[in-house]
């Protein structure tokens, strides 16, 4: 995997796992790759993946069945969304807001842009 250089590796691996769950590649109650398997696939230190899995366990996105391995939590999708939302509001939204303010973009215009974007990309 290509890592970006602006974010801790363990968080980038967390995004990768979340992405797989959201896209339905890894389903609820299914086993996720072991720490070692994922470390080998990502070419990273297993301790880094362990840190990722601890984080995802805290967020109730995966759970640890002792002796068997890590599994996708029943409520993983909802928990990923709330975790992502928190992150988006904390990290990305301030940057967007700053540009909206600096460029003086009105909320009406923004709403129109948003609706067009959703239509074009998600056919909603």
């Amino acid at each position, binding site marked *: 995997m290509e890592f970006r250089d602006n*974010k801790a590796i363990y968080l980038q691996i967390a995004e990768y796992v979340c992405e797989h769950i959201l896209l339905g590649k890894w389903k609820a109650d299914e086993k996720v790759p072991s720490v*070692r398997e994922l470390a080998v696939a990502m*070419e990273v230190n297993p301790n*880094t993946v362990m840190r990722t899995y601890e984080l995802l366990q805290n967020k109730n996105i995966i759970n640890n069945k002792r002796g068997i391995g890590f599994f996708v939590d029943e409520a993983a999708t909802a928990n990923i969304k709330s975790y992502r939302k928190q992150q988006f509001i904390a990290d990305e939204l301030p940057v967007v807001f700053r540009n909206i303010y600096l460029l003086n973009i009105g909320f009406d215009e923004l709403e129109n842009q948003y609706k067009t974007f959703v239509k074009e990309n998600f056919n909603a």
Partner: protein
Amino acid sequence: MIEINNLNFGYSKHKPLFKNMSMRLSNGHIYGLLGKNGAGKSTLLKNLAGLVYPQGGQLNVMGFNPSKRQPALLSQICFIPEEFYLPPVKIDSYLKANAPFYPNFDHEYLATLLKEFDIPASNKLIDMSYGQKKKFIIAFGLATQARLVIMDEPTNGLDIPSKAQFRKIMASALTDERCIIISTHQVRDLDNLIDTVIMLDENDVALKASVEEITTKLAFKRVKEIDESIFYAEPSLSGYNAVMPNYHHEESKLDMELLFNAILAEKTKFKPLFN
């Protein structure tokens, strides 16, 4: 796993390499040993493996004093030197002569590793390229199942696919019982494999900290302008790559090259953070 207490060593009396160096290393980690040319990286590794002897202080490696070179210890150390010699024999004769020194030697694992590294088992060692030889001794070293794995510049001479292969192999080779120490200048080859950084400078350990500790205390960022909060910065295409105290609890990615240069240039600024 390893305890170094007040180690003193130098190749000549007037030029000490280590003065009262102390450090502890534990299993379950991949340590990245960094330092300028001549800082003593290889020499420290040789001290640990019993290839040179301390002039003062104590070394304890898995309960042994490496200077005594007891077989019980040496069979638990795999040392991959930067420069090495391989005799003009075929792989199987080399194994017959050398594998018996390691009671836990795993022939099946060796076969797997050689396959992953794309080396035919029928090869004569002398006919192989430098990179192939290097891959062979890495594979042999890991197949010894030694608990202490020491590698001096392991990625030198490896081609691009072999480097990726090497990272995968090392990621799977780390177990809770093993301690892996890798000295390197090729930081970009290995930075995601290393979980703890050891940096040697001016006869001592300039920094020993886990990646987690470093990125908790320091932030690595691109900035447009330099201000007083920044410890060290290097110009880049879009401003500067900077290291600064992590005031805002940011989770940045450790830039090992930048950290290396920063510590060489601004040692006094970093000292109080890591003690």
